[in-house]
Every structure is written in C-alpha cells, then in structure tokens.
C-alpha cells in the first residue's frame, strides 16, 4: 500500500506544489502564448497531458531497456530530444488517420509541443530522480496536469482582464507576466500541503 501512497504524494507534489510552469519555468512559451482564451488553453492542456504522459513512458522504456544495458546513459539528452520529436510527429500522423475527432481537438497544438521544454524536462527529471517507469509516468501525468491547471486559470484571468485600462507600456505581455507572478505567489501556498 505504501506504493500507492507514494504515487499519490508524487501526484500532488508534481502537479501543485512544484508546479511545472509557476515554480520550475518549464513550458513557459505556450503558457504565455496560448492562454488568450480558455478554450484554446484547455485544448493545449489536453495535448500536453497526452504527449507528456506518452513521452515519459517511452523515454523511461528506452532509458531502461536500451541506454542502461548498452552503457550509454550519457547520450540521454540526444536520444530523448529525438525520441520526443519523432513521437510527436508519429502521434500526429496516427491521430489524423485513426481518430479525427481527437485530432481536431489537439491537432493545432501538437506541433507546438515539440519545442515545449516541459516534455524534455520531465523525461530528464525522471532519469535524474531515478523514478523508474511507473513513477515516471505518474510524474509525467501529474506535471502535465499541473501545466493544464495553470494555463486554464491564466486564460480565465486573461479573459476577465482583457479590456482593463492599464498603462500603455504594460499592455499585453507585461500584464500577463504580472498575473503569472501573482499566480505563482498563490501556488507557493501549496507548499504547506505536504
């Protein structure tokens, strides 16, 4: 039973306490770029959950069954980035062919994810912290959920504040960054959770 407890703690800590965007600054580009509307933000969030979970599974498998037996762990960065890029392409093609409905929901966001550093970040964290495959997948999933929560909240706030009267210099990106900063303060509160 301790395993399940461990996984639950990991789930909470990866998604809320050390939120991937607000405390680790990974995946900042889509976080700031695709958060104008709640609808697109949730689409991006779903795509990220999908890809990160899959990528952490695949990267974990490759690390354990290919890199470690061959003694070439030092190639992890190169291998992971290529695997992720190929995986995203492959997922895109697969979805287009077999599940047009899902492709319609995620399609536009999939190619953007290749450059999302959160994906590579999660794969590397899994290896660095020696999570193994199951824990790695849970960590990947939780991280992506954390990303989704953050981006949807930010999109909600941006929708509300879109027409506020702010000084001209602060219009656009600076306001978004300030909002993100305030959200980061709020998320600091979660650190008392564990």
């Amino acid at each position, binding site marked *: 039973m301790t395993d399940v407890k461990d996984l639950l703690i990991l789930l909470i800590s990866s998604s809320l306490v050390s939120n991937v965007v607000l405390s680790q600054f990974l995946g900042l580009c889509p976080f700031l770029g695709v958060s104008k509307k709640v609808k697109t933000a949730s689409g991006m969030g779903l795509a990220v959950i999908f890809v990160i979970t899959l990528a952490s599974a695949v990267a974990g498998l490759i690390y354990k069954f290919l890199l470690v037996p061959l003694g070439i762990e030092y*190639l992890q960065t190169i291998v992971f980035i290529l695997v992720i890029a190929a995986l995203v392409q492959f997922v895109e093609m697969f979805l287009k062919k077999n599940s047009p409905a899902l492709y319609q929901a995620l399609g536009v966001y999939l190619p953007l994810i290749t450059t999302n550093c959160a994906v590579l970040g999660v794969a590397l964290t899994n290896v660095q912290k020696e999570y193994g495959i199951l824990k790695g997948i849970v960590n990947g999933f939780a991280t992506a959920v954390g990303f989704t929560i953050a981006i949807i909240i930010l999109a909600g706030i941006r929708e509300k504040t879109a027409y506020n009267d702010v000084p001209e210099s602060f219009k656009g990106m600076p306001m978004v960054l*300030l909002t993100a900063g305030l959200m980061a303060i709020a998320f600091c509160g979660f650190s008392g959770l564990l």
Partner: protein
Amino acid sequence: MSNLKKKADSPLERLGNGLFKENPTFVLMLGMCPTLAVTTSAMNGLGMGLATTAVLMMSNLIISLLRRVIPNRVRIPAFIVIIATFVTVVQFLMEAYLPDINKALGIYIPLIVVNCIILGRAEAYAYSNPPIPSFFDGLGMGLGFSFALTCIGAVRELLGAGKVFDYNIMPASYVPINIFVLAPGAFFVLAALTALQNYIRIRLRKAGKKDKADKIQSGCNEDCMNCSDKGCSKRFYDNSKKTEAKDAMNGAKRRRAALARAEGEKVSSKEAEKEGSESFADKNAEEKEGEKE
C-alpha cells in the same frame, strides 16, 4: 534580421550585433525559460550564460562548416543532434570542473538543447554564412545572453538577498525582499523588463523611427502567421503544419466551397485567413457561402 547579409560580417560587427543591436534577451526576448529559472543570483546567471555561449559558438561553427553537407529537408533534426551533442559535452565538463554551479543549475543545463536562441541562430545565420562570422555570431549572441542573465540575476539577488555575486551591497539594516529570489520574483522582474521594452518601443515609434522600433520584440506569441521574425526557430515547425492542421479541421465542406469559389475569390479568402484569426476566417468563409446562395 533581413539586413544581416548586406554588410560584410566582420567578427567585431557580429560581436556588437549579439551584445547590443540584437541582444537575444533584451531586444528579441528569446530563451525565456532559462532566463527566468536560473537567475536567482548573478553567479547562476553568469554560469548559465557562459554554458549557453559555449554551446552556441560550437554549434554555429559546426553547422556552418556542414552547411553544404546537410540537406535542406532534414536540417532541423541535424541541428538538434549537433546542438544536443555539444550540450552533453558542456554538461559533463561542468559536472567535472564546476560542480557547484552545475548543481545549482541542475536540469536547466541539458535543457539548453531546447533554447530557441541556439536553434534560431543556426537557422538564421550559421546555415547560410561562412564559419568564422558564424563562430563570432555565436560568441556575440552568447555574450549578449550572458550579460542579460547576469544583469537580471544581479537585480534579483540585490533585491532578494541584498548581495551581488555574494558581496553584501545593501546596508545591514536592509530587509531582503525574499520574494525576488523565489519563483514569483522572476515573473515580476521580467514583467518590468517587458514594460520597459514596450515603453522604449512606443517612444521610438512616436519619434518616427519605425524600423528601429519594429526590431524590438516582446516574446513569442506562437503566432507565426503574423510574426515578422524570420530567424525564429519555431517558425519551421509551425508554418506548414499549422495550415495543414487547419485544412484538416475545416473539413470537407469548406474545401468543397473553396473549390467552387472563383480563383480571384480564393486568393482574397486566403489573405483574409492569414490576417484574421481562425474563427474570423471561418466566419468570413461562411458569409461568403451565404452570399453565393
């Protein structure tokens, strides 16, 4: 970035370009993830900047040497492999000789791979220029990045801990604003920086220096359709695929409508699609269909 090829690219000109004219952080707003994450102190910022500089110089040099060998179609994967190789080299060097900084920077060292500055320079400069200017372009850009990171790190360290490079600067009575070395502080500092950038741009535009003002960019909106930055690394992932995905999303109905449309209308609708957002373009097409019926 289009004016790069006009001038004779002397090493010195390249250095100045990277440091000031096209400073990757202050002017172009590229590579924001590491900028925010590692600038908790000036030392960390400097370490990250120099690591990136090393990777940038070497990858620019090698890509420039191989620019006639790498086929155009597979250039992005080829760039990524070259960059990832140098990142790995730098990572192990830092682990061996600078273990403290390596520990502080942690996962952000291998993540240099996905830093858009490096891929951007490879694509925008090194792939179409000779090795020596490319090398100095990498050096200039890298030093510009290091300079920016060190500045931001110094500000955060000064406000958040009252020190710069671990030297006490503030008087003993100063109470550090802790939040500046924590995650939210990074967002606030960057917000101030972008606001300053906007301010300068607005001033420049009012003074009639539009070309200078247009050079200043505030980060990536993931809006490659309307983006003027041809050197952006992401552009090459998105542009083709975005339209492809759009086509798929719009479905057969719209395609049939497009086929039925006259050639002149087709062009105009494409322009409308480029300018407007997706939903706007959709509406446009629907309206046109309605008009026809």
